[in-house]
């Protein structure tokens, strides 16, 4: 009984999972991005690693001054990532096969078309604006940091040193400044001296990129990073060296982040409805079985009791009979003895 019970439990779990599989296949369709949304095109063949974009970002966002000034290029000797005081960083990549010298690459939030951070946040603190930027709302964030786990580009950062009001910090594509008219292009783009960064509509940026491929044969790889990666991003990269050599992962695939979890989430209503019904069913079966076995038991008990009583009665009767017989025999014996005594007395008297 027990083994069957556990197996039925497991079987049910497995079925739920398989249902999840098919649900995933039927999950949300690919989202091509908001039409007319803005983005930035970064050209690694143009970037000179001057860090002016970092300075521009720092200034327009009012971020704290870094320990080393922005014109200190020795910080490029180490690979860096974004942190809670720095929305964007430039890294230098040396010794790339086929490259004449070092190649630089700027990193910041990619402003995904279907952001992992937004889909993973349980208070919807992130918004993918129709204009392209992914923004974050401090008034609801709990500080669980699941968005940091989820982001495939390792972008959101956290103010770990804040005891009670730590914020998630990341690039906003200067969306607050641009909507309020303080800026027309993001701080980094405005600061770049060599137009390694271009701000514009994503569709136009894709055209510009292809135009450069055509205008400078052999200068670029025929790939726009971010066109399809992780479902597509508003920030785009073109380069003359493989993207993996400048710190952009090439194994991310083109599936958008929300699709990885949609299957698991689709199972929820199935579990919530099918599971209780199944469990009640199992309960009913066991109750029925219990009832039957209970009845059988009662019957068996009654029978056993009856049998025992019968046996006891028979035993008693036999004992009674035996006792009776014993008594009879004893009486007979006594009578016989008395008679014998009497006869003996008689003969003695006769003498």
């Amino acid at each position: 009984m027990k083994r069957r019970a556990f197996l039925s439990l497991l079987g049910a779990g497995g079925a739920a999972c398989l249902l999840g599989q098919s649900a995933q296949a039927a999950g949300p369709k690919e989202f091509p991005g908001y039409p007319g949304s803005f983005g930035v095109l970064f050209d690694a063949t143009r970037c000179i690693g001057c860090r002016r974009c970092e300075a521009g970002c720092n200034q327009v966002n009012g971020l704290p001054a870094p320990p080393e000034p922005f014109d200190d290029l020795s910080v490029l000797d180490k690979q860096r990532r974004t942190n809670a005081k720095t929305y964007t960083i430039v890294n230098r990549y040396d010794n790339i096969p086929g490259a004449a010298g070092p190649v630089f690459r700027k990193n910041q939030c990619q402003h995904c078309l279907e952001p992992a951070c937004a889909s993973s946040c349980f208070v919807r603190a992130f918004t993918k604006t129709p204009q392209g930027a992914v923004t974050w709302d401090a008034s609801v964030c709990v500080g669980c940091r699941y968005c940091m786990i989820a982001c495939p580009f390792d972008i959101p950062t956290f103010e770990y040193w804040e005891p009670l009001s730590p914020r998630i910090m990341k690039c906003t594509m200067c969306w607050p400044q641009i909507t309020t008219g303080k800026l027309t292009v993001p701080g980094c783009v405005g600061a770049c001296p060599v137009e390694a960064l271009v701000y514009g509509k994503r569709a136009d940026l894709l055209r510009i990129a292809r135009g450069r491929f055509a205008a400078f044969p052999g200068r670029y790889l025929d790939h726009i990073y971010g066109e399809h990666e992780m479902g597509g991003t508003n920030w785009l990269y073109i380069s003359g060296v493989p993207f993996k050599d400048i710190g952009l992962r090439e194994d991310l695939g083109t599936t958008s982040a929300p699709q990885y979890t949609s299957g698991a989430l689709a199972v929820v209503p199935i579990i919530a409805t099918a599971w209780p019904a199944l469990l009640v069913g199992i309960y009913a079966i066991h109750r029925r079985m219990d009832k039957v076995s209970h009845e059988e038991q009662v019957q068996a008990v009654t029978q056993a009791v009856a049998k025992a009583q019968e046996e006891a009665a028979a035993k008693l009767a036999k004992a009674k009979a035996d006792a009776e017989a014993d008594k009879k025999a004893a009486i007979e014996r006594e009578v016989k003895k008395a008679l014998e005594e009497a006869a003996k007395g008689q003969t003695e008297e006769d003498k």
Partner: protein
Amino acid sequence: MSTAAEMKKTWLTPFNIIVGIILLVGGFVTILRFTKGLAGVTNLTDNYPWGIWISFDLLCGVALAAGGFTTSAACYVFGLKRFHSAVRPAILTAFLGYSLVVFALHYDVGRPWRLPYPFFVQSGTTSVLFEVGLCVFLYLIVLFVEWVPSALEWLGFKKPRNVIVRMTLALTIFGVVLSTMHQSSLGALYLIAPSKLHPLWYSMFLPLFFFVSAIAAGLSMVLFEGTLSHHYLHDKMDKVYLSEHDGVTFGFAKGAAVVLVVYFFIKIVGITLDNNWHYLLTGYGAWFLFELLGFVALPAFLYAIAVRERNACLVRWAAVITVLGIILNRFNVSLVAFNWQLPPAQKYFPSWMEIAISVFIVTVGLLVFRFIATKMPIFYEHPDFKEHVPHEGEEEEAPEFVEHELKPHPQSLGH
């Protein structure tokens, strides 16, 4: 009797001293956490936003508290009534376990007072974490209601207690549904990060892995904890609990063996479907095999032997290995195999203060458990509220001598 020396002697036991130190250190680190922030006490980084407070306190805590729903489901839904005496301890452990998980989260999240926000202010329903949070929140309420009769019996409130007891089946089913969802969702949390988790641990079956292994963990925890309680709270146990203890032990051991075997095979299916066999030859592969063979296959085997030979001691060992295996698995998924492409120097290792808080929280749990188990009817039935479901054949009205002749051996049922 109550001289000062006497008092000193009774209070300064090694147990009390250790507990005292743990509580003191815990209090100290708590103050640090809420004045200096997470940076003051943890080794968390932007690459490792989740440390052992998530790996151990949340992932392991929830998995190891699965004994509550497995035991009550076995008893009330699957009709295994002879597990009845194991239900209350398991419910109490689960209730405390989940309470501590929520307590621990207050250390980990940035703004703890906002923990109810997802349900009351703004809901991110596309997030797996939302599902986890909602289910844990609801299940905590269910567990509380399931535990309340013990307290009411202790206090002597008959009426409310009876109302709740009548809802047992509904509560149990609700609990199983919620547990199924959040146990699996804890695995689903990592589905969104295929690029960060090593392929040997990443699988679209992660939710199923977490769910099935949680059942094994729950059963093993009931066994493990039964041993400990047996040792330390023996005088609080009644005849029914003690007489059923062996039946529960081997019944659960058999269940755990089956579940572990199933878990082992779905793990293999997971590797095969993703065609990840070649990774087994790497360092991570060796570590994966260590986990799978040493902490899944081995305890399954030990459980099977123990049941066959009715060896309670071996059951205990198998339970301990299973529990360690689940902890190892959760650590592997959330820390070791997570960010596997990061250079070793950037990998996370907990600070002593993070460990201290985890130890502190477990200690608090043990103390509360001991308090409740010594005060309230957990291991025994309150004389005023006796309603122990008798074994089949153990009918009260049946004549004494027949009862024992008819009572089947507890184990003979399962075969």
